[in-house]
């Protein structure tokens, strides 16, 4: 079929405006499709229950907004550490610039710096970890995505939500959600007064368990232990379950965008089909001549199908490529209740989009190709 490529390209070039309009329209729609799919991919990655993880989140019972979960520290810290099967505990004070859905959420996690180094696999891209640990008056490590989004640089201060930190490093993480965080010192956010020996309040505790298979059982023990000893009760869940609840307000809207994507693909189908039908109708005589000189109906069908496929795939490549470039140039994150969903344009998403473009190209070319292949030569020549 490749030896007919010049013929197909010549036909497309012969109707430049039509070809450009079809490819342009397809590209725009596939860009939109990829864009809405990227947020679905981010949501899936964030909440996928099939990925077993060893982290539990201890939050105040019944609460979901970080600002209203107030767990005593360090008394709960000590109690949780003593639960059998708990490997490590990270108390976290969450401060967020806005709890509501936002495309520009900045989330501070105040943590004890020594424990952070122990429990997180952060890859420092710029700056120094020891400088962060030593800087007790607001040293901070900033996630790569947030740094790119906000143009944050090492060595400079960064202010938001009434908090000013000194950026000591920029990190990457194997957990996409973490790359939108700012880690700072727990004591910097809690701001204990000298001589203060009573409990302060953190937002949550992140519990690392030795055996992920026992995570649910350990969660129950943690809640029971707190219930037995303290008045403020807790709810302990696997981290992904916690994420699912925190962003549950957005799940419907994100599900809604799936329909937007489906309609986009539908419009691509109509656009390409229409274009191929026009091409077939314009070339009724030409196809009859080709058949007269010995081209089979199947060959004509193949030519029409290839034309449809080429236009659709080209549009798809441009649209999906445009989306990847856009998200690479301007990473986007949708935040809610201190949890961030990244717009993830992964290779899998690109492959899925291209597959869909191919499918649409084939489907759109079937009917006009079939009609062109079965046309009566004599009446077509007239």
């Amino acid at each position, binding site marked *: 079929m490749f030896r007919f490529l010049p013929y197909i390209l010549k036909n497309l070039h012969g109707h430049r*405006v*039509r070809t450009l*309009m*079809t490819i*342009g*329209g*397809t590209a*725009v*729609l596939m*860009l*939109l499709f990829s864009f809405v799919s990227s947020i679905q991919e981010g949501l899936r990655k964030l909440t996928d229950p099939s990925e077993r993880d060893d982290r539990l989140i201890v939050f105040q*019972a*019944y*609460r*979901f*907004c970080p*600002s*209203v979960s107030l767990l005593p520290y360090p008394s709960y810290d000590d109690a949780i550490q003593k639960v059998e099967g708990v490997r490590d505990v990270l108390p976290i004070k969450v401060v967020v610039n*806005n*709890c*509501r*859905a*936002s*495309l*520009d959420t900045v989330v501070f996690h105040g943590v004890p710096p020594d424990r952070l180094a122990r429990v997180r696999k952060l890859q420092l891209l710029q700056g120094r970890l020891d400088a962060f640990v030593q800087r007790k008056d607001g040293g901070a490590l900033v996630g790569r995505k947030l740094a790119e989004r906000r143009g944050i640089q090492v060595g400079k201060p960064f202010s938001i*939500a009434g908090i000013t930190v000194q950026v000591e490093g920029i990190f990457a993480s194997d957990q996409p959600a973490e790359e939108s965080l700012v880690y700072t010192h727990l004591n910097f956010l809690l701001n204990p007064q000298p001589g203060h020996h009573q409990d302060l309040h953190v937002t949550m505790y992140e519990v690392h368990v030795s055996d992920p298979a026992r995570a649910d059982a350990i969660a129950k023990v943690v809640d029971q232990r707190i219930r037995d000893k303290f008045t403020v009760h807790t709810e302990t869940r696997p981290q992904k379950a916690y994420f699912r*609840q925190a962003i*549950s*307000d*957005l799940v*419907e*809207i994100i599900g*809604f965008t799936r329909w*937007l994507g489906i*309609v*986009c693909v*539908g*419009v691509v189908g*109509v*656009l390409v*089909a*229409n*274009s191929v*039908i*026009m091409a077939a*109708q*314009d070339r009724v005589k030409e196809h009859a001549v080709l058949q007269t000189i010995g081209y089979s109906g199947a060959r004509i069908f193949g030519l029409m199908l290839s034309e449809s496929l080429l236009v659709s795939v080209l549009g798809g490549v441009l649209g999906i490529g445009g989306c990847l470039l856009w998200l690479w140039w301007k990473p986007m994150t949708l935040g*809610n209740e201190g949890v961030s969903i990244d717009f993830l344009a992964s290779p899998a998403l690109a492959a899925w989009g291209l597959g869909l473009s191919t499918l649409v190209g084939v489907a759109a070319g079937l009917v006009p190709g079939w009609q062109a292949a079965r046309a009566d030569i004599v009446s077509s020549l007239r």
Partner: protein
Amino acid sequence: MKLLPWDYGVRNLLRRPLRSVLTALGLTLVVFLLLLVLSFVRGLDTSLTNSGDEQVAMISSLAAAENLENSSISEHVPTLIRSELGSMIVKHGDTLSVSPEFLSSTTLNTDAATRVAQLALFRGVEPEVFLVRRRAYLTAGHFPKAGELLVGRLAAAKLGMRAEELALGKTLQIEGKTWKISGQFAAPGTLLEAEFWAPLDELKQQMKRPNDLSLVVFRLNPQGSRREQLDELELFTRYRHRDLELTASAETEYYASLQRHYAPVRGLAWLMVVLVAVSGACGAVNTMYAAVAGRIREFAALQAVGFSRRAIGVSLLQESVLLAALATLIATGAALALLQGVAVRFTMGAFALQLDHLALLIGCGAGVGLGIVGAIPPAWRAFRLPISVALKAV
């Protein structure tokens, strides 16, 4: 100018029915997509605009900024407001229109054992709330007594539940305590409709914050000078009671700040509208190019027998606009039937998709506009050639 007959254009559309149907289908989908996104943007905008009452002012904690759920002010603030600002507040008999309120977001369970706890927004209120929040009214039942609460009209949508699950008499579990639904309220077009309202003192007790409030809202006298009233509020919060760390604002200002907060989300939605419209324009231009390409001789012949280029251009425009108008009509009908008023759960509440006059104007205007845009480049191409050359064109 002598125009071509109206049915000339109509007949041309019917000459290639499959192409016309496909173009109409494509345009229908495009206009439907436009209306879908517009209904979201307008629904969000309308609910934020309607939620703020221009006569209402509010006092909350200085530290809470835009998150009223984080606001915590002294329970004595309403008394101070009544005594010091009473003269500029609307009175109903002896009662001032002052509503102390307590906001809390927490999880809620229904009777159904299988249902997962849902995130809900609760507002502790007193009966005076209806004096201040003029859009709100009871649609069924009565104001809650101890252990009871009111359910907003969109609360079920917010929780992803069926309306029957929040019917009168049903019980709900909130932080381990059982509450009975005593009534339902509506506050058309506002975010309040997605909330649960409970007696103020009882909700404060339940949330273990018995001594504080989230905010106090009150209705300012419309006869007074707004400037002077706001100055007085400034004096009250910043100078007279500086120690209480309060801030005052018109309620409309608060919702305007929320609107600014959602600006990037709206910007993204508008970008989608533009992209969808561009793809629709590509389809329309394509179809009209094809309609013109095979008829260059025909147009030259029409010019030769006395029809002006403008008349032929009008006929082309008529074809294109007719197709686009048909698609717009179908899409608008479908959107009105399927989208209008559909409740969408959104962060901290829910709102209804809104196909108001502006959304319809933009959607329909864009639909018909696609027809016009689609006709211009092909018409330009058709009349580029001189008649003598065009008559020989194949």
